[in-house]
Structures are given as structure tokens and as C-alpha cells.
């Protein structure tokens, strides 16, 4: 029974009124505490004085280094890093499982650290280095953890797998892969509904040994 903190998503609804969109809450820096009370405009709309209902058409420029390549994009400030990867840059290897930071399917490395890309706004990461599942192979050779996932059958449907692998790389780099129990603990933010956990632990342990 995982004990990840609740995210603000479901608390934000009012039955018949305008509803607060999660990203607006995040953008305001408020989190769940702000959620239930009143409609709040998107940041750009508020700044320019337009009404909340009108929403925002403004975009902001962001420069990211994705898998070693520099990309400059104009993004909606509400857009999560995940949606920029998937919908703007076409990097669909990173998956959206819950969009609430509770499943880990969208895990990527941001400046070398693992992060759930659905819970962070792309506009916050000017100049950041992003590594996704598409950037792991070197000259057609699988990353050792990718190879270990195949070898130890650490996957079934494969949907959580990109997030598991990115999280596993982070887990190893953090020094949290010394024992199966430690791996289980530090990989518990990545849910696998097919139940490939024993293979995932074996794969991370194997790759950690080789690292």
C-alpha cells in the first residue's frame, strides 16, 4: 500500500461552477490547499487582466536540451513537461498514466535527476537537460538497464516500462540499489499493474552491479 501524497487533482472540482484546473494551482504555487475554493485564472490571463473564462492564448519561449539536442519551443505556460514531450516534440515514449504524479509512468531525467514530468511545467525549465527513454541507446546499443529489463522480463504490457527504466537509472545513480529491498523501496513510485515487480527489481539490481 503505497503512501504517496495526494495530488490536488480531484479536490479541485465544484459540481456546477467553473473548475480549477490542476496546472493553474501548480502555477500559483499553492498545491492542494488552494484547490477547493474559487475559480482562478491562468497566470497570463491574470497578468493581462482578461477574464478567467477567456483563458490564455499566450505562449512563452523555452529552450530545452532533450536527449542531447537543443530544442526551442513556444509553449502554453500551463503545459506540463510531459505534454511538451509527447504532444509538442512527438516523443511519445514517455507515457501519461495518471497525470497526477502518482504512477511514475512519465518519469524522465531532468538535469540527471528523476522527475515525474506530468507534475512540472515545461516553462519552469529553461535550459534544462532532459533525458527520455528515446535517448538511452548509444549507436544502436541498448543501455545496460534496457537490456536487463528484457533479460529479466521486467515488463509485460510495456506501458510503465519507459518510466520504470528512467526511474531505475535514477535509482542506481542515487546509490539506492544496493539490495533488492532497497530497490523495492526506491522504485515504489513507479506502478506496474501487470505485476512485473520481481523482474524489475532483478533488472535494476543487475544493471547496478555492472554500473
Amino acid at each position, binding site marked *: 500500500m503505497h503512501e504517496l501524497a*495526494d495530488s490536488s487533482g480531484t479536490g479541485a472540482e465544484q459540481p*456546477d461552477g467553473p473548475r480549477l484546473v490542476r496546472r493553474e494551482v501548480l502555477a500559483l504555487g499553492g498545491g492542494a490547499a488552494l484547490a477547493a475554493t474559487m475559480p482562478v485564472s491562468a497566470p497570463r490571463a491574470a497578468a493581462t487582466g482578461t477574464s478567467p473564462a477567456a483563458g490564455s492564448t499566450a505562449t512563452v519561449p523555452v529552450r530545452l536540451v532533450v536527449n542531447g539536442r537543443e530544442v526551442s519551443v513556444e509553449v502554453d505556460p500551463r503545459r506540463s513537461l510531459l505534454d511538451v514531450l*509527447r504532444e509538442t516534440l512527438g516523443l511519445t515514449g514517455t507515457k*501519461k498514466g495518471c497525470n497526477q504524479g502518482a504512477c511514475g509512468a512519465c518519469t524522465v531525467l531532468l538535469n540527471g535527476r528523476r522527475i515525474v514530468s506530468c507534475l512540472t511545467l515545461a516553462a519552469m525549465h529553461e535550459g534544462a537537460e532532459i533525458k527520455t527513454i528515446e535517448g538511452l541507446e548509444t549507436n544502436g546499443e541498448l543501455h545496460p538497464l534496457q537490456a536487463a529489463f528484457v533479460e529479466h522480463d521486467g515488463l509485460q*504490457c510495456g506501458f510503465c516500462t519507459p518510466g520504470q527504466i528512467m526511474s531505475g537509472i535514477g535509482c542506481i545513480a542515487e546509490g539506492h540499489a544496493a539490495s533488492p529491498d532497497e*530497490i*523495492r523501496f526506491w522504485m*515504489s513510485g513507479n506502478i506496474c499493474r501487470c*505485476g512485473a515487480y520481481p523482474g524489475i527489481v532483478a533488472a535494476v539490481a543487475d544493471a547496478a552491479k555492472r554500473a
Partner: protein
Amino acid sequence: MTTNVIGNPLPRVDGRAKVTGAARYAADFNQGGQAYAVIVGATVGLGRVTGIETAPVEKMPGVVAVITHRNAPRLPYAPHKSYIDPATGERLHVLQDDQVRFYGQPVAIVVADTLDQAERAAAALRVSYTAERPLVDPADPKARPVVPEAGKQPDARLPADTARGNADSALADAPVKVDAIYEIARENHNPMEPHATVAAWNGNRLTLWSKSQFVVNEQAEIAAVFGLPPENVQVICPFIGGAFGTSLRTWPHVTLAAMAARQVERPVKLVLTRKQMFFMTGHRPRTLQRMALGATADGKLTSIVHEGTGETSRYEEFMEALTSVTTFLYSTPNVRTRYRLLPLDIGTPNHMRGPGEASGVFALECAVDELSYKLGIDPIDLRRRNEPAIDEGENKPFSSRSLMKCHDLAAERFGWSRRLPVPRSMRDGRLLVGMGMASASYPAFHAPANARARLLPDGTAEVEVAASDMGPGTYTSMTQVAAETLGLPVERVRLSLGRSDYPPAPSHGGSWTMASVGSAIRAACMAVQEEAARRPQDGRPVEATASAQRDPDVAARFSMHSFGAVFAEVAVDPDVGTIRLRRAVGAYGIGRVVNPRLARSQCIGGMIGGIGMALMERTVLDPRDGRPVNAHMADYLLPVNLDIPQLEAHFVEEIDPHVNALGVKGLGEIALVGMAPAIANAVFHATGKRVRSLPIRIEDVLSV
């Protein structure tokens, strides 16, 4: 050349695609110029839509359409039902009227240029209702059980009532009895991949990149809804990110995606939110069961009475095999089963891994465990004393049955002999330790299937079938079947799945894919070899399509099921009531194992699903409006890595010459069945407290 690849533990042939992000799931099929659709769901549980303020939302940036029941096209909704749809009732017609039948039912769809704009606009849409209090609590006295229509016929596949002997009088006369009520919470499938459809029209032709376990049925259903010839609809789904039953049916969001795409004359992408998957795409129904056993003092069962009720919606009668296993698992002259439905103001439930069997076997196997303590007989021994020679419900021999072999193997691997029989007698420091076990069973189904095989001049082969792979390893195991039949190494065989224009296959569920599709692939590979032998070698590809189905004579002569045994050890903290599964061992008799590596993974995955059912999973509805209050992956508890201890899955040697030419029985479902009762029985052994409701929670054992 013979390759003998069936039985080899090959790594997944699609492993590389899945670890590199190259495998594409429905929402990954972005189309040029696509718009994004977001569903607005009802915020009341029962009533009517009285107003929708579309005008302000239509003016919002990027919004291209707001579709409601007022402006949606009236769709033909021609009659169409597959065997995976409820036999009685009519599917939800989406945006065709103002009625709200359950919380979250789609009342509008907003389409915009970008996802952010669509989400924002959907959140801003004001909808007003006249609302009544929905009936969502099965314990509400206003909830009235009904006899399922499709269960009334004497030859019904899921009969509402069955009886042999006189179970009630035998129960009354029995010297030893167990008579108890078992309750199981509503569960949601929660595959990692949300439901998603990308819809694109080209004139009167529609392409759907859509998450589906049954692409040919999705094609037929959407063709019926829109009044199109089926060949005008193409459904593409090469990979499924888990489904466990939720993508067997074609749900209304697929219709909405197609409707929106036609309206805006652009491709439209529609992905359900995690929350929407808690009320729009089916669930394992809540069940309430009475299980009564009568036995002699030396442990011979004299009677079983099994009465079960499952929830359904108001508009469809969803049925599952809740009482089926009770009629044949053990030998007893007197059995009565009764199955009823409880219509509520909810969306229609649907099949979830081990549908019916997982719930029914929980009640039966917990009751048998209770009986073992009353009798003072070891639980395995009690089962051995009631091992039947034939299926006494059908009065037919089993094609094969390895139940006691499974118990013996699992007991030995588990170390059952170390168990002290008395509850609360085993401790590890201050923790209470318990060991429990249960039997499992699931039918060895088979459905007609077709496949196409093509031999290419370069010595490779292609095989095509409209089946799916939601994770068990269908791509790999079917490649093995084709390679073995063709006498080719697996590297020379390329299998393609998940297109509705491939030869039709049955739904990818019910543990029948290997039996059904595997047999069809075998037949197609044999046919293409015959064709190649007949034809002169002219350097052109040779192709053959073939079908396979079960010999009706075999089905008439034999009862065909998989059997298994599951053993579990738990540790319960007597002070704070936390329950930890410490280890579990499963042994299964499933006929031939095509790929032991993948079969083991599939079994362990099913066991983990059972751990969730036993200790965590529960969708809670607010009785005021039917809203699921824990509709996200943080509060709908399910097993994470740290919850899963050492698990073992073993297969007993089982050669079944009758079940099909491949000798396979399937194992996707049986792996889940049996886990929950094994854990519940272990919790009793640890604590002396019998918990008869799932999931077992801290508060259930706190008073120990």
C-alpha cells in the same frame, strides 16, 4: 528442419520495442492537424441536464467545438451485441438525450486546438441539472435483486439457478456446517494505459487508433453506431498498455472521438483521464455471497449452497461466472447455486481478470477453510477427501485435472509442513504469522479464430491475425507456435497483431488467446506449407488463410478447466493491524506451457493482482451522488514494488490430449483466482479472526 521452439523460455520478441519507447500505444498515434477532445462528465448521479452554457466556452481560445446532446448528431445506433456485451439491455447512447444515468456520464465534449485549451475549456463549461439521489449502495433496502434474463434458460451459459440433489435439506441435516456471508468491494481495472482513441475520417471511412482488446468488435460496434458498412471502419491497436478486461467492450468515448472528428473535420485525439476510468469503462462489480457447506464429521462434503448477487447498471445486465466453480470443484451429492443481479444507478460493470471465478472462489475457498478448522482436518487433506472423479455438475470427465498435484507441489515448495495448525500459534517476534492456502480454477475456453500465413522468397514468414497482446506475451508465444509449425527459427517469423482488417480473432481475454489464436496460427502455417508444396516455386510469396475451432464432440464429452493451488504467508502486527504478505507460492495445471519465462511472469502478475484484491483494492462511492471518492492512483490502493515479496509460480506437468491441438489451457485468469482466499485464510491463521470481506483492512484485524 525442426526447431522445437514451443516450450523454450525465449525473451519477448517485442522487448526491444518496449524498452526503447518504440512500441506505440493508442495515444501515441498523433495525426497531423489533430484537435484534442476532452469529455465533460455529469456531476450528479441521476437526473437530467437542464442547461449547458456553451456560448462562453465556444469563444475561448482554440476551442473548435462544444458538442452536447442538443447539437450532437442523432446516431443510428443499429443493434449490435457481441458475446462480451451484456446479453440483456442496451448500451449507453452517448449525447443522444438529456438523461443522466450515473455519475460521470458524458454530457458534453469540448474540442480545441491543443490539449491545454481543451482541458481549460472543459473545466469552464457550466452545466446545470435537475438531480435526484441515485441508488448506489447495495445495502440500501430500495435495491432489489433481479433474476438475470440471460440466466433463465435451462441451457444458459451462466444459469441463474442450478441444483443437484437436495442441498438445503442436506445442509440442515449435516453434522458440521459453515454458513457465512462474503462481501467483495468494487474494483477498477486500472491498467497503466488510459483508454485512448485517435479518430480520423476520410470521407465516409473512419480510422481509429484505439485501445481495444477486440479490434474486430470495435470495428463492428462503431460501424453499427454510425450506420456504416464495417469495412469502412479500420481499428488499429498494435500494443495495449494493460487492460485486464476494461478494453473488451467498446465504450462510449470511442463514439465520442469519432463524432468529434466528424464534426470538426480534423483528426481528433481523446484520452480519458485516470478519474474518468473509474466510472466510464467498467469495473469488477461489488458482490455479496452466501456460502453454506455441510459435511460429515470425517470431512466429506454433503451439501453446498451458494447464493451470490452482483451489482449491475440500470440499463444493462452484466453477468459473470460467480457461482460456476462451485458446481464442480469438489465432490458432493447436493449443490444449489443462485445468481442474482442488483441494478443500481452506476455505469455497467464488466469483466475484470478472473471475472466471477475470482469472486466466487474467494467465498468457496474461505468457507472450505472455515470448515477445516471446525473439523480439525488439515485444509489440504480436506480438499483431498472431496476430490471428485468427474465434473459432477456436468456429469462429464475432466479432460485433465491436476488440482491435487498442484497442492502437493505448492505445499512442498511452500513448506506447509512447518505450519502449526492452531490459529495465533505462530509468531515472529511480536508479529503474528499465518499460513493459508486455497484452490483455484478457471475454464479452458476456446473460440473460433482465423489467421493468415505468408512465406516470402527470402525464407522468412509473416503471420497476421486481428488478435491483441495486452502484455502476456502474445507476440512472442504466437511467434513460437508459427516458427515450430513452419520449421523456421523465430527470427525468421514476423507476427502482426491488432488491425481489424487482419483475419478475425476472438476477444483478447478469457484466457483463450493461446488456445484459439494459437490453433488458428498453427492451422494457417500448415495450410501455407501445403499450398507451397502444391505450387511451383516461382519466387513469389505463398499465402494461406485458415481457421480453427474446438471440435464440438470434444466439448460435449469433456469438462475442461485449469486448476491451481495458492499458498500464502502473512505477518500481522497485533498492535497496529498492518498485514504484510511475506511470501506466496502458486502451482498451476494449465496444460502445455508455450514459454515458461513469460508464463511465469504472467502468473506472478496475476498473483499480484490477487494481492491487490485481497488487501488493497476498493473503489468507494459517495452514497449521495455515486461519485467515486478515491478515483485516482494515490487513493485507489494497489500493489507497488515494496508490497511484493518473494513469489513463486510453478507448473505441474500436464498433458491434455483433448483440450486442443496445442494442448494449452490458458493461464491469464487462473493466476489471480485463489490468491485472495489464500491470503484471507492466512490472516485467519495468524490472528484467529475470520474476515469475510475484501479488501481486508487494518480496521478488520485491529481488535485482535
